């Protein structure tokens, strides 16, 4: 089986400081990988390098494209990378506002991504937008409302609908449940898990919440100071952590 994504020796520096360094892994179709670490450990830098939002200083991010097979996305042209990020990739931001157009209706937010890949029939686009609102548990009567009139949890679900409507194969998520209260988090986790299963998505989830990765991720990578200190099966890393930092991280979680 060809990996969907092969990350090879990615490095990003901010001047003399290390953002992330020497990160390599393979992600296979249908796999969900979590990246954890304290803030400043380089996990968001890494995610942004992989998703093409930041240019890494070294390394390759090889994606198995539908048309041409494995291609290094770091060296591909800007228009090609943009096309990829509209079709096969999706990016769920921590703050829904960064991933939504706040002045456009909920339906418009979902429809925009469809139009970006060539859909033109208004009725079809609206129907699919309403279908997706239902899947993320937003009432269809809200289709014409602007996201600014939505609660934080609804905005986050709308962002997910907008991202998944074009049937991407790889989803990058940056703290998807951050800043939401726990009951909304539970609902979002359940939703994400269902969507990952139904659509056979691969996902990379950056978070500092170990409970979130335990429920969502098959595999886990632990970062500290820009380096990967430990990687493996999620429950193995959490239940039998080998590295000093992972042990500290796991033992610091408050028991409820």
């Amino acid at each position, binding site marked *: 089986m060809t990996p969907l994504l092969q990350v090879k020796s990615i490095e990003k520096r901010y001047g003399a400081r290390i953002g992330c360094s020497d990160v390599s892994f393979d992600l*296979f179709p249908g*796999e969900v990988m979590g990246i954890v670490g304290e803030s400043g450990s380089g996990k968001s830098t890494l995610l942004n390098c992989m998703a093409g939002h930041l240019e890494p200083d070294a390394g390759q991010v090889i994606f198995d494209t539908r048309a041409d097979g494995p291609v290094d996305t770091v060296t591909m042209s800007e228009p090609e990378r943009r096309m990829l990020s509209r079709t096969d990739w999706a990016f769920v931001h921590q703050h829904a506002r960064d991933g939504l157009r706040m002045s456009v209706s909920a339906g418009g937010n979902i429809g925009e991504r469809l139009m970006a890949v060539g859909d033109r029939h208004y009725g079809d686009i609206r129907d699919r937008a309403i279908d997706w609102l239902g899947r993320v548990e937003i009432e269809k009567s809200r289709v014409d409302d602007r996201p600014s009139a939505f609660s934080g949890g609804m905005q986050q679900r709308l962002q997910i609908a907008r991202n998944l409507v074009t049937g991407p194969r790889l989803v990058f998520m940056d703290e998807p449940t951050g800043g939401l209260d726990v009951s909304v988090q*539970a*609902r979002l*986790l*359940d939703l994400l*898990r269902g969507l990952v*299963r139904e659509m056979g998505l691969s996902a990379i989830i950056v978070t500092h919440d170990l409970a979130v990765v*335990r*429920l969502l991720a*098959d*595999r886990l990578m632990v970062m500290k100071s820009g380096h990967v200190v430990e990687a*493996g*099966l999620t*429950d*193995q890393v959490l*239940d*039998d952590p*080998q*590295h*000093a930092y992972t*042990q*500290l991280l796991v*033992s610091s979680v408050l028991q409820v």
Partner: protein
Amino acid sequence: MIELINVSKSFTLHNQGSAVIPVMQGASLNVAAGECVALTGASGAGKSTLMRVVYGNYLAASGRVLVGGLDVAKAEPREILALRRETLGYVSQFLRVVPRVPTLEVVAEPLLAVGCDKQAALDKAAGLLRRLNIPERLWSLSPTTFSGGEQQRVNIARGFAHDYPAMLLDEPTASLDAQNRETVLSLIEEAKERGAAIVGIFHDVEARNRVCDREINVSEFTPGMVA
């Protein structure tokens, strides 16, 4: 089906003076298809540790852990995930589920994961819940709010939903009444009949004598002195 060859396990506590605690050494055992083996030994002897090493939840320090031909001690995460999906089932003492997911779906999930038809999976899950006396009115609710015994039975139903060729059972009959205990024991007997290799921890001596073909005392694998 399940074979351990000279397996050892130790924990290194980096944040507590890098203390190294050896918990298991020279563990070897072999469980054939259709056989049920009980792990015995005092509390703390390493029964659960051994099961977790087999499941890939704990990393073995040395030795080979073969389940259906795969060496769990050295396998890639995705190989272990595939093994857990198709070959190796584990009924733990605690139910860990995503909040909000209805009981019926929790039980059907292992079947859906191996590509079983949705209706067939739900039917089988319903059959198991019925056998384990979980009232039908609870099936659409999340098991997170259930009583301890009910959660335990949901956990067992989930563990037996897919016909795994190899199974690990951690006290499957604990906290069950006589009737449910009987059901669980017959589930284990049925699994053996279809050729499942089972490793279990049973504190319930009667249950152990009824379903287990032999016993392995894990104290033999406990290092005598703690360094």
